């Protein structure tokens, strides 16, 4: 198996799908010659030229709205919003147009559209460049939400997303781009709506996604040394949600910890907790714990932002508290 970075996996997925289908194109700020501020489209402009990989003005509303218009006319746009924090600028287009068009037109309109973006705390980009906003997007019926944690999932899910005939927000994580992992050979797809058990265990279920999968796996290693066997469920896609896998695991372990980087209040972890209670109440041996960002804007200095978001120690600590 090849080893590849998350960033390279994203590029390879784009490259393969663009090669396969001439209707796929990329648009966004600095995605062209520069290859994206995170270099996640590097080399594609050179391969496909400016008619299929192009820069836009700083106009997030127009980026999303124009991608929608192009999708309605039969193309399959991959539109980039540089930071998930900027989806607020285009929130009307995302929530009221892109996500609802199929439904509002009684099924007439088909919107095969991927909005690629990235989020999360990096190295001190502060309150407007560090957020995890997936809870906004999961509260929009009609919009699928995909958040892969590994290079292999990133590639397989991005390819599936591009082939999907529904609008999808595909949220990468700025600290994942450099991470590496094995990538299957050939044209593989990862299904949307299927969680992945990244580590098996019998004592507690850790449910998580995106970069927090890595932190949770690290926590699980720490716990393993103490004889605690945590199962780590990587949701990979939040909508559709693979509830079966969550419930199956929680029924097995009787304990659930949910880990996400977004601030706790109103985070998607709440939804998962509520669903577990609805579906597996009688199997729970302890309250469900949420380990999440604290309810503050993300601060600038490292000691501050580190205090805000979860890390392996905090996760391990929470698990110990449940047992």
């Amino acid at each position, binding site marked *: 198996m090849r080893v590849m970075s998350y960033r390279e996996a994203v590029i390879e997925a784009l490259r393969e799908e663009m090669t396969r289908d001439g209707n796929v194109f990329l648009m966004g700020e600095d995605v062209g010659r520069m290859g994206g501020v995170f270099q996640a489209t590097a080399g594609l402009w050179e391969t496909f030229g400016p008619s299929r990989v192009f820069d836009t003005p700083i106009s997030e509303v127009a980026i999303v709205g124009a991608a*929608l218009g192009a999708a309605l006319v*039969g193309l399959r746009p991959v539109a980039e919003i540089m930071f998930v924090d900027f989806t607020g600028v285009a929130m009307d287009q995302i929530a009221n147009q892109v996500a609802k068009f199929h439904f509002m037109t009684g099924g007439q309109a088909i919107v095969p559209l991927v909005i690629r973006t990235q989020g999360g705390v990096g190295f001190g980009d502060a309150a407007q460049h560090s957020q995890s906003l997936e809870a906004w997007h999961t509260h929009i019926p009609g919009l699928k939400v995909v958040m892969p944690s590994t290079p292999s999932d990133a590639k397989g899910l991005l390819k599936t997303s591009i082939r999907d005939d529904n609008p999808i927000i595909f949220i990468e994580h700025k600290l994942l781009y450099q991470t590496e992992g094995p990538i299957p050979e050939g044209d593989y797809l990862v299904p949307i709506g299927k969680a992945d058990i990244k580590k098996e265990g019998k004592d507690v279920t850790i449910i998580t996604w995106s970069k927090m999968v890595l932190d949770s796996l690290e926590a699980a290693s720490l716990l393993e040394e103490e004889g605690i066997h945590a199962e780590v469920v990587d949701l990979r896609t939040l909508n559709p949600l693979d509830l079966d896998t969550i419930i199956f695991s929680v029924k097995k372990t009787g304990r659930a910890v949910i880990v996400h980087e977004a601030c706790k209040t109103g985070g998607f972890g709440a939804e998962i907790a509520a669903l577990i209670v609805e579906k597996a109440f009688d199997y729970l041996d302890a309250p469900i714990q949420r380990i999440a960002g604290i309810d503050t804007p993300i601060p600038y200095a490292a000691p501050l932002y580190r205090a805000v978001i979860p890390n392996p120690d905090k996760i391990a600590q929470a698990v110990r508290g449940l047992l």
Partner: protein
Amino acid sequence: MSVTDYLSWGGSMQVRKQEKIDLYRLMVRIRAFEEQSFISFNQGLTYGVLHLYIGEEAIAAGCMYDLRKEDYITSTHRGHGHLIAKGADMGRMFAELLGKETGYCRGRGGSMHIADMTIGILGANGIVGAGVPISVGAAFALRYKGLDHVVLCFFGDATINTGAFHEAVNLASTWKLPVVFVCENNLYGISVSIKNACALRSLADRSAGYAIPGVCVDGNDVLAVRKACIEATARARKGEGPTLLECQTYRWGGHFTADDGKYRPDEEVRHWKEERDPIGNLARDMLGSGEIDQQEIDVIHREVKEEVEKAFRYAQESNPADVDGMLRGVYYESPTRTRNSKGEDLP
């Protein structure tokens, strides 16, 4: 400018009598549709509110008369006129207003969301300004595909102050896309006079900020609108980029069916209804020039009336929207996992 003035211009475009009659019929049809819509609203047959197009018929008619089926439009909350002029089926439109399963949106969308993807109607829209970027994206797709079709983007005067308008027009201008921005300046955004929302004397002047042409016409003169739109679409088809076309007009009623519009001076309303009726004035001019006689006019009105009645009957007799089906309507289920949007199966 009256119709006769326009003809006396000796403009390059010859307006044949039959074309004028067609345009007349189209305007009458739009108005008749709206009148029936209003009756239905008052009878409690529709839901929500309706934004009627009465008084503004010349814009939709004049702009759309020469479009191809393959051309696209984006419309607004005040969309009925646009849809009819682009060729939408009035029966399915009424069915939508009445919340029927045969409606364009199967009763899910209502007046503000009617679309007909088979004839290039990319939806009315309930969010002011939101259609503008969509129109630009459609124009981009046409060029991407190497087609010489165009997109007409309709919106009101007040819409030119939205960020969506700005970002989209700038994009279209920078990329020289085949789109015509048709600003229906009816002087108000709900109760707010455009004078209190924008310092420009003519809204067409906003075009200067994007280095695109701006044209201002009497939006109640269907022939003037038509001529301006033909010129703008020709530019667009030739790859010369977008035009901002301001059409000055007036809505006869309130902003929506639940508004009496009393914030407008009586005299202003009277002036536009009595002196600047796009339908009445065209009839007057054609009668004056002898191109048509009263009897012919009466026939048109009678025929349209029957047409609208038939369409409305179709809607009334249709089944109500199906609740169960709705719950499956949020996502598109591709027949196969790898079908593309053109319906082709990919390997």
